[in-house]
Every structure is written in structure tokens, then in C-alpha cells.
């Protein structure tokens, strides 16, 4: 739980949170939505509002034993139930057991004219009836702004909305109010209802850049509580919504002091023992500097210790990798046959960023490897903006670290740019960074290797020449290039 900031001498009361049960969202919000208060969930059409709202209710029932009311101004009960059925929730059972009260309010169904003054006590009565019916602790009001298009007296609707939200607060139910985004400059929602919901505002966004869709979430406001302020990518998976907190995965990974072999004796020596187990290692270099060879050596060493290694190849097929490594004397096929080495080759272009991340997650979860290789990560930027890739990448790194999986990432440095530059700009979050270069000297190409950084490891700071031959990689013991 996030701690509320305390100002002055008086201790500020901590906002009580109601966990959503939505993966990642509770991390960002420091425990969930403000309990007993309304939260505004805002986003454009197709941004995932309804699904998130539904999941909030469903998880409330299944995980926290809190019943819920779902008031929908847009979708029918059947549509809503069908939507979440795909996530594996049988709403009919919840409905039959009176855990959920779903009310569809179709304002267009009845022909009506407005005469004099009115209020929305009818709506109040319906909500209250639902809450009492199931003893609801949570409520979703989905699309309440449609009231504005059916009733002409805007001032009355505004007054009544204000009254509803205040009344809900008094009832102590945690409310999630969804609203269509945009339209009016200077306001988040089309009708500015954020004015009446001041405790927490969550914004969902669904963008398509270069034909690839990315979903994002951010907390615009959370009164009295610390919250993540970034934009977080999220996925709609088979299990519902999954938000990827970037900084919420606190820096509390167990830092292992155990070292694992790089697969190359002389490189081990340079690190005085090898990579740290569970650390993140970045290998960068221009084309043809031997990045894939270096990671394959590592894969070879991991499997040689009878441990599982997962190799995500974004440029070459599994067969190409096996063949190439065979040519320098490494038998990867043997490990594949034993089930120790799994090579997953996929063109990043084929899937959107979110699907990509999801697929990797699923495979890693399933295989439970000791080491993971991503070769190269620079290829991922073809499926999203630099920022998107970085966000996704940090999430992967965090995830692997938390699970104590040693991870090697390669990145291609464009030939003409600084050797220290990586496309995805993630070198700062890496524990170890190895730089490979091709230098031309005396009419010959010379490969060189340099350990740019290695957190917590004593390491050689020399630039070493190395060769790749039929017998594999051979690093010069003590050469120093100019």
C-alpha cells in the first residue's frame, strides 16, 4: 500500500483502498480504487472501459467477496455477460446466486416529453434497489453521460449527477463511473463530469500507430494517495485486463551473488567468474560483430548445466541459429532435443507490441527457464514507438529479474552511430553491458569486446580483441587495442 504523504505535524489519514483485482492496476494505485468513493474511468470508444469496469465487479465478487451492481446505459445484460464470458467468468451463475445486479437502462426505449421541473429520483430508486438487492459494496455506472443526450435540461442533469455521486459516497459503495472521453477543450470528458468525481480519475487510451494498436492507462488524479503517474501499457488477455506497471515493480529483486558462466572461459575471467545469476546483460554492437554468437555461448553453458534456456529470436529462425552455431563448433540441436533449449523465432512485425509481450510472458511462465535470451531487442522498435518499446522492455526486464532469471539482450547499433547508443535506450537499466565492435586495422577487420559496465562485479576494463573461428570464440588474453 502506498503511504499517504503527511504534511506538517498532523498525520494525514490514509485513503482506504478497494482492490480491483485487475492485474497491475492495484500496483499503480497503491492498493486499488478509493474505497467507498466514486472513481471516474474515462476513455474513447473501444478503449476497454466496459471490460475494465466489468472486471472490477467480477473480481470483487470472486476475489474479495464483495457483491456488485452494474448499471449500464449502453449495453444490454446479455452483451455484458457475453463480453466477460470470453474471460472465463460465468456471469449467469453470479447472477443466479445474487452476487451481481445488472441493470440495463435504455433511455431511448420510451417516448417521453419534458414538462416542468424534475429530478432523477427514479434513477436513485433503481440504484438503491440494486444495491440493497445484493448487498453491493461496488457499483459501476457505465455511460451515465447518455443522460445528457436524452434529457434537455442540462442544469438539472448536472445537479442530479452531483447529487448521485455524493449520495453514493454516503452509501459507502466503491463506485466506478465510466465516461466517454474528449470533445470539449479543457475537459477530460465530453460533459465535464470529472468536475463531480474528484477522488480518482483513470484514463484509458487506445492508439494505433503504424497499424499497431497499443492500449495505455494512466491515473490522472488520485486524491490523498500516491500513485504512479506514467502511462502504463495494458493488455486485454484471456484472463482480463493486465496493466504493466513500470516503476511499481519496486527495486526489491533479490540480488544474487551467485555467478553463472558466460560460456566462454576468458570472458568469465574478465568478469572474475561470470554473469551474476538473475541479472540483465546487454550486448550491443554493429552488424556482424558476434552478438548472436556470444549469447549462444551462454545458452550452451546454461543447457550444459542441465538448466533450461529460452531463446527469443527476432531475426533468425531456430534452424539458422543452430546451423550458424554448428559452424563454430557448438551443438545446440542436442540441447533442443533434450528439451533444455527452446528457440522461439518470431518476426516482431507479426504482432502488436502488446501481443508480443503477452506471448513472451506466457512462454516464460510455461517454461520456467533459468535464462532467457532476446536477440535482438532493437528489432522490436519496428512494432512501436521508442517509448512503447522501452516501456515494454522495462517490464520484461523487471519480470525476469523478479523471477531470478538471467537475461541476455542483444541490440544492434547502427553502423554510423555512437557505439554506446542503443535504439531502445535501455542501457541504464542493465546490470551489465558488453560492447562489441568491428575495427579496421591494417586492412583487416578486427573484432573487439569491451565491458562497458557491470554493476557490483569487478571486471576488466580493457578492450579485448577476439576472433570467431571454426573452433568458436577466442578472446585474446591481454591485448589492448589502441
Amino acid at each position, binding site marked *: 500500500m502506498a503511504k499517504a504523504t503527511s504534511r506538517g505535524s498532523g498525520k494525514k489519514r490514509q485513503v482506504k483502498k478497494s482492490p480491483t483485482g485487475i492485474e497491475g492496476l492495484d500496483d499503480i494505485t497503491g492498493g486499488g480504487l478509493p474505497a467507498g468513493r466514486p472513481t471516474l474511468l474515462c476513455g474513447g470508444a473501444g478503449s476497454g472501459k466496459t471490460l475494465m469496469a466489468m472486471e472490477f465487479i467480477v473480481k470483487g465478487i470472486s476475489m474479495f467477496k464483495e457483491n456488485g451492481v452494474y448499471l449500464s446505459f449502453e449495453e444490454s445484460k446479455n452483451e455484458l455477460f457475453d463480453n466477460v464470458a470470453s474471460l472465463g467468468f460465468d456471469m449467469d451463475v453470479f447472477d443466479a446466486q445474487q452476487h451481481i445486479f445488472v441493470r440495463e437502462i435504455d433511455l431511448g426505449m420510451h417516448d417521453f*416529453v*419534458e*414538462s*416542468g421541473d424534475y*429530478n432523477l*429520483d*427514479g434513477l436513485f430508486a*433503481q440504484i438503491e434497489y440494486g444495491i440493497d438487492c445484493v448487498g453491493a459494496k461496488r457499483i459501476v455506472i457505465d455511460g451515465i453521460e447518455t443522460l445528457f443526450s436524452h434529457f434537455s435540461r442540462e442544469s438539472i442533469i448536472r445537479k442530479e449527477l452531483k447529487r448521485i455521486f455524493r449520495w453514493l459516497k454516503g452509501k459507502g459503495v466503491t463506485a466506478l463511473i465510466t465516461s466517454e472521453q474528449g470533445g470539449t477543450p479543457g475537459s477530460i470528458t465530453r460533459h465535464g463530469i470529472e468536475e463531480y468525481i474528484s477522488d480518482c480519475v483513470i484514463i484509458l487510451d487506445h492508439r494505433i500507430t503504424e497499424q499497431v494498436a497499443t492500449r495505455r492507462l494512466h491515473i490522472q488524479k488520485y486524491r490523498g494517495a500516491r500513485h504512479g503517474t506514467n502511462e502504463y501499457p495494458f493488455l486485454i488477455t484471456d484472463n482480463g485486463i493486465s496493466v504493466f506497471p513500470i516503476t511499481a515493480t519496486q527495486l526489491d529483486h533479490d540480488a544474487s551473488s551467485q555467478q553463472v558462466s558466460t560460456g566462454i572461459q576468458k570472458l568469465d575471467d574478465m568478469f572474475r567468474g561470470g554473469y551474476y545469476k538473475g541479472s540483465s546483460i546487454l550486448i550491443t554492437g554493429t552488424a556482424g560483430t558476434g552478438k548472436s554468437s556470444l549469447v549462444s555461448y551462454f545458452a550452451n553453458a546454461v543447457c550444459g548445466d542441465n538448466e533450461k534456456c529460452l531463446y527469443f529470436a527476432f531475426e533468425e529462425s531456430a534452424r539458422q541459429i543452430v546451423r550458424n552455431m554448428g559452424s563454430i563448433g557448438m551443438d545446440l540441436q542436442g540441447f533442443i532435443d533434450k528439451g533444455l533449449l527452446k528457440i522461439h523465432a518470431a518476426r516482431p512485425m507479426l504482432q502488436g507490441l502488446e501481443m508480443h509481450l503477452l506471448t513472451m510472458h506466457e512462454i516464460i511462465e510455461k517454461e520456467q527457464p533459468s535464462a532467457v535470451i532476446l536477440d535482438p531487442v532493437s528489432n522490436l522498435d519496428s512494432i512501436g514507438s521508442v517509448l512503447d518499446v522501452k516501456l515494454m522492455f522495462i517490464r520484461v526486464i523487471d519480470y525476469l529479474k523478479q523471477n531470478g532469471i538471467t537475461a541476455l539482450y542483444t541490440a544492434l547499433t547502427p553502423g554510423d552511430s555512437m557505439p554506446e547508443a542503443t535504439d531502445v535506450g535501455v542501457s541504464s537499466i542493465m546490470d551489465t553491458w558488453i560492447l562489441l565492435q568491428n575495427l579496421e586495422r591494417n586492412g583487416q577487420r578486427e573484432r573487439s569486446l569491451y565491458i562497458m559496465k557491470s554493476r557490483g562485479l569487478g571486471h576488466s576494463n580493457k578492450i579485448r580483441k577476439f576472433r570467431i573461428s571454426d573452433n568458436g570464440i577466442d578472446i585474446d588474453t591481454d591485448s589492448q587495442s589502441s
Partner: protein
Amino acid sequence: MDSNNPDTWAFHLFVSEKSSDTDRAVALLEQICQQYLEGKCQIKVVDIRENPVSAVELNIIATPTLLKRHMGCEKRIIGSISDKDKLLSRLGIEMGG
């Protein structure tokens, strides 16, 4: 819930709390009923606070709502009712007599 005779004018007034406004609206409806509808009316006041199920069943959002049924047609008039002529025109009743 209304009379089976489609010729009957059924007026159901949904309110959230009976007030002097309610009494005035009922009196007006009774007057219209006698004057224009040959007394073929059923007038009923429903307090949705006492009877929230009716609000759910009939999807009452605003109060007061006057729900009129006649010859299988339904019409809703939302808001306070105080003007007879206005009400007649909203109900679609010819002011012949």
C-alpha cells in the same frame, strides 16, 4: 397492471415523495378525465421510494413521471404538471368540449 380495456386511459404518476405538487397534478388529471375522457380513466400515484420495484420494472428515471397508456400506446411526460392546456397538448387530447 392497468385495466384490460384498451379504451381506458391509464394515468400512472410516479413521484418520489407525495407533495402538494402531486395533489395538484392528480386534481388536474381528474379534471381532464371528467371533462374530455368521459371518465374512462384510471389514475394512480406510485411513490417509488415505497415501491422501488416499480421504478425498476417500468424504468422510471426522472420524477415526477406521468405514464399514460391508451389504446396500447404509451407515453411519458416528465416533470411537474401544472398547466392544463399544456398537459392536454402533450397527452394529445383534443380540446373540443
